[in-house]
Structures are given as structure tokens and as C-alpha cells.
């Protein structure tokens, strides 16, 4: 089986020759650049600065040689610009605050200020206040919220739509070429076209906008889902309309060079609870999620990937109703997210893309033997009858001991030979 066939078989809920593996195909299934460097060293691969493929979380590129070493079955298609609306085609070498040489978008300067903090500017324009910061001792970036006073009489959906518009011809061309190249690898192609996440708090602060308008503070946004429902409906409605127009052009130009589309990373779960009830999900999100998912299923061969962290058991029936095919990252250590229960209850409807290893305790703090037995157990439960792509619960973070990551990879190798 080729990697692509393996992933497609699993997505069709049939048993592939082995469990397919993803590390690095999206911004939520990746590896921190520090760990990528350690893995390259461990496997004796060529030494060179790791390329940052997603600067917000400082994810490193899992290049073809490392993919080979890890047995990875999925490749990415990312957009031409990052979260800060900075061109990703122009790179320069920079040293991170922890002393690692990396290749990163030229519009990003990793030089810390005297407090040790690194500031990032929307579109690389330093004439406006910074839109994000990597505080000293931190290993990735977070938004700087720039919230003007919200005047409810003046607030318009367009204020929160500034970053969402029709795809330019150049951007479309970028996706066509990137998808062609990705499909040529024989691996499953996971595309992040962007613009389709509804109310994702990673995007709400508008880190790519120099002076964002509308609701841009995360707490204010959460409150808006209760007290400004009409505004949220109008925003989601218009954003979905734009998304479908863009997807229509993307499908015509790209077709089945892409296998999976990562459309929405809005988190509905916390460690122990949810951000809203199932009723609220059904009222506020479901109509728009369903509209886009139905369009995708009626017009394309793409499968739809939904990311939501946390304890989302009460929300999952809504996500299935909305037509999502894939759930990620399957946060198995959150409340009630028991793997056996999830597989039994929802395994026929959803492919679990994640849940392969707990990343809050086992991966960073477990022993290699604990890691092995945990991974074997997760694969046995989630991998039965397909419907499972191996991935950790979210990105592998900086400072996870390399011997633990290697123990994880060795276990996956062991599984291939069973």
C-alpha cells in the first residue's frame, strides 16, 4: 500500500496494512522546531537549520528524509502567508532565544528586546504596534490583543471579516503548485487553505492585521457568543459564503490532488468542560459548519478535518451532524474522553486523527516503557477497523525529552512489523 492508499483506507473505515502516521501535515499535528532538530540529530540526518513552517507555534518542517525515518504517511499544503500575514516564500536565518538556528519568514525578526521578549508585527510592519509576542523563556508566540472599545451600536460583521476575502489568482496558483508537488510524493495530502475556521480564538485577535476592528479580545469574543448572537450569526454566514466561493475555485483548480481539508480549529472543549452547550453549538455553529461540509461532500472527494481540543464528548454528536469526517486531536486525558468509549460510540462516524499518545503527562514525563505500553494500547483501541490516523494529542512541544519522542517512534516502528 502507498501512504496515500493507507490513509484513504483508514478514512474509509477499513483496515489498512498498518496504522497510518501523521506528524507535520497541519498546524495542529506538528512538532516543535527544537524537537525536529533533536530528531534529525538522533537519526543522523543532514545538519542544517530547521525551517519554521508555522511561526505562531514555532513548528519545524518534517522534511522528506525525516518523514522517511519516521514512516510518515501525510504531507502538508500550507498557504503562501503565515498567521501574521507575512510572506512564507522569503526566508532568512535567525537564532531563537533558546539558541537554535532556524530558517524563518524574512518578515520575522527573532531578536529579543532587553526584557528577553520577541515581538512580531502584522505584515512585518513595525510602524504599527506588535500583534504578537514570544515572552522570554517561552517557546512559541501568543497574540497581543489590540481591542478598541466595542460600541455595539456601530459594530458590523465586516469589522471581523477584514482578513477573509476572495482568494487572489496568485494565492490560487500557489495552492495549485503546492498541491501538485505534495501529491507527487505518493502520500496523503492535507490542505490548510485558511479562512474557514468559525470563531477560532487563535484567529480572533487578527494577528495579521495592523489595526484590527471589531471583536478582537478573546474574552470579549466568548461573551459575544452569548450576548451578540445576531452579530456572530451574520459573521459566520458571510464568512461561510466567502469560503464556499473560494473552495469552489480551489476544487476546480486542484481536484483530487488534495485528500483532506483542515477547515476549522475552533476549540469547543476545556480540560474538564466545554465552551458551550450542544444546544448552543447547534444554534450558532452547526448551520454554517454543515453548509460548508455539505458543499464539500456534494462537490469534491475531500474529507473534512475538524480540530477541537478538550472534553468534547457532549459536542461530538453535533460535529457528526454537521458532517465532519475527522476529529483531531482527540484529547484523551480531558474529562470523559475515554478512548474505548469514543471508538465504540463515535468510531463508525468519525476518523480519529490523534489520541495516539497523551501529551500532557505520558509523552513529556513518562518513562520509555510507559510510553510504549500506552501507545500500543491506544493503537489497539483506536486502530480497530480503520478510522484512525496516528498522531499525538496536538503538537509535540519543545523540551519533551528526545528519548521519549524516540520511544514513541520506536513503538510505531514496532507496530509496522506486527
Amino acid at each position, binding site marked *: 500500500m502507498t501512504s496515500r492508499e493507507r490513509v484513504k483506507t483508514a478514512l474509509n473505515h477499513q483496515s489498512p496494512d498498518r496504522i497510518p502516521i501523521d506528524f507535520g501535515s497541519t498546524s495542529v499535528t506538528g512538532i516543535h522546531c527544537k524537537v525536529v532538530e533533536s530528531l534529525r540529530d538522533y537519526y543522523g540526518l543532514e545538519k542544517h537549520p530547521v525551517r519554521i513552517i508555522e511561526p505562531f507555534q514555532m513548528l519545524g518542517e518534517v522534511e522528506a528524509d525525516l518523514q522517511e525515518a519516521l514512516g510518515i504517511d501525510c504531507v502538508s499544503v500550507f498557504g503562501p502567508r503565515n498567521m501574521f500575514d507575512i510572506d512564507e516564500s522569503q526566508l532568512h536565518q535567525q537564532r531563537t532565544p533558546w539558541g537554535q538556528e532556524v530558517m524563518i519568514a524574512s518578515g520575522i525578526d527573532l531578536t529579543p528586546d532587553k526584557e528577553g521578549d520577541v515581538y512580531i508585527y502584522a505584515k512585518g510592519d513595525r510602524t504599527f504596534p506588535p500583534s504578537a*509576542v514570544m*515572552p*522570554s*523563556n*517561552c*517557546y512559541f508566540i*501568543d497574540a497581543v490583543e489590540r481591542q478598541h472599545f466595542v460600541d455595539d451600536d456601530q459594530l458590523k460583521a465586516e469589522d471581523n471579516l477584514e482578513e477573509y476575502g476572495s482568494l487572489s489568482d496568485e494565492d490560487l496558483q500557489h495552492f495549485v503548485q503546492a498541491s501538485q508537488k505534495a501529491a507527487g510524493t505518493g502520500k496523503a495530502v492535507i490542505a490548510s487553505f485558511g479562512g474557514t475556521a468559525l470563531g477560532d480564538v487563535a484567529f480572533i485577535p487578527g494577528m495579521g492585521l495592523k489595526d484590527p476592528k471589531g471583536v478582537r479580545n*478573546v*474574552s470579549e469574543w*466568548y*461573551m459575544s*457568543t*452569548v*450576548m451578540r448572537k445576531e452579530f456572530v450569526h451574520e459573521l459566520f454566514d458571510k464568512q461561510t459564503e466567502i469560503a464556499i466561493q473560494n473552495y469552489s475555485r480551489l476544487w476546480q483548480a486542484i481536484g483530487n490532488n488534495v485528500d483532506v481539508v483542515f477547515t476549522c480549529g475552533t476549540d469547543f472543549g*476545556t*480540560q*474538564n*468542560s*466545554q*465552551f*458551550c*452547550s450542544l444546544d*448552543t453549538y447547534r444554534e450558532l455553529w452547526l448551520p454554517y459548519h454543515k453548509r460548508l461540509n455539505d458543499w464539500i461532500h456534494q462537490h469534491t472527494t475531500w474529507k473534512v478535518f475538524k480540530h477541537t481540543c478538550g472534553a468534547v464528548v*457532549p459536542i461530538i454528536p453535533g460535529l457528526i451532524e454537521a458532517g465532519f469526517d475527522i476529529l483531531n486531536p482527540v484529547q484523551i486525558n480531558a474529562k470523559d474522553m475515554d478512548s474505548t468509549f469514543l471508538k465504540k460510540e463515535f468510531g463508525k462516524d468519525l476518523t480519529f486523527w490523534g489520541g495516539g499518545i497523551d*501529551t*500532557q*503527562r505520558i509523552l*513529556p514525563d513518562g518513562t520509555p516503557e510507559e510510553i510504549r505500553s500506552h501507545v500500543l494500547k491506544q493503537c489497539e483501541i483506536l486502530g480497530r477497523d480503520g478510522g484512525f490516523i496516528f498522531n499525538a494529542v496536538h503538537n509535540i*512541544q*519543545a*523540551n519533551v525529552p528526545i528519548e521519549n519522542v524516540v520511544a514513541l517512534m520506536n513503538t510505531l516502528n514496532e507496530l509496522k512489523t506486527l
Partner: protein
Amino acid sequence: MADLQELYKAIVEGNLNVAKSITQEAMEEQIEPQVIINEHMSKAMQEIGKRFEEGKAFVPELLMSARAMKGALDIVKPHMAQSGTTSLGTVVIGTVKGDLHDIGKNLVASMLEGCGFKVVNLGSDISSDKFVAAVKEHHAQIVCLSALLTTTMHYMQKVIQALEEEGIRQQVKVMIGGAPVSEAFAHQIGADGYSENANAAVTLARTLVSA
């Protein structure tokens, strides 16, 4: 006359403007701040906290209640000193160095404040030096440390060490919270307690100050 039952309702429902106007009215009628806080505000925050624990309210509702409560409390505060209102204790709270997540931490701060503690909210990305300085300056009885990341949670131990090195560890109780931390982790690093959510944090803080 100010309808304080309506204040309770306004806070539970997260209605900022109503909460403020009733409180303003109550101040003009010279109702004791202690009565407003203990009998109404605190009970309202406990009620929304209870609904949160029962899965009947969620983070957005909690944020709205906290905002309504803070709006009301800002009106009451100037009257507290003159009426000799005492707090349950002083709490210094912050998200540890390297971590910018603060929504959950702010909810804990609001809940503690609404339930009668004096709260010094240092913000996020806070170094051990800043925690130590704040504990000394405000004579805090409790320090609350928050972290959302597995990469930053271990910094909590550094804060505890810094309190020990400064010889003030015995004066304060250390509470920890945040997604990746647990009761076991609290024991491991020598904290005095862990709480899973904002409501439980208030219960824990009350226990720690009365111990």
C-alpha cells in the same frame, strides 16, 4: 429602594449595566458594603460557579458574570475602607513566566474577589521575583499560580523555591491551577493545594486561610 435580589440576578445573568445601576442605588442609600458583598455578590458568584460545575453554564457565561460583578464591586470599593469592611484575606495571583494564558486565571481572580478576598492580579508571564515582591508588598496570605502549558508548569516549583529562599514560604499558602496541573503535581512541587476550577478555588482558598 435598591432591589438587591435584582443585583444577585443581574450578576448571575451577567447583566453589567443592571448590576452597576442597582449597586449605585444601594450606595446612595448607604447600604453596608459588607452586606452587598456577602449577601448578594458572593452568593451570585457561588451560584454561577455551581452552574459551571454542573455543566449548566460555560466559560462565556462565567466571564459575563465576572464582568457584572467587577462592575458592581468597583462602585462598592471606595466605600469599603470607610465602613471598615474586612476581607477574607489577600491573594496574589498570576500566570507564571513564559505563559500568556490568562482567561481561566482571571476567572479565578474574579471569583475570589466576588467572594470577599482582596485580590492582587499580577497578570501573565510573571517571574518568581515579581511573585515574591507582591507577596511582601501586599502581605498576602495566598499565592495562586496558573499555567496552561506543560512547558511552563514546572516554573511553579521555581516560584515556591523563591518564596523559600526569601524566607516567606511559611507565611503564604500556595495554590496552583491550569489545564495540565493536578493534585499529584501540587504535592510533587510542594504546593498547598490544587483546584480544578474557579469555584473549587474559592472553597480551597477559604479552607487555607482558616487553617
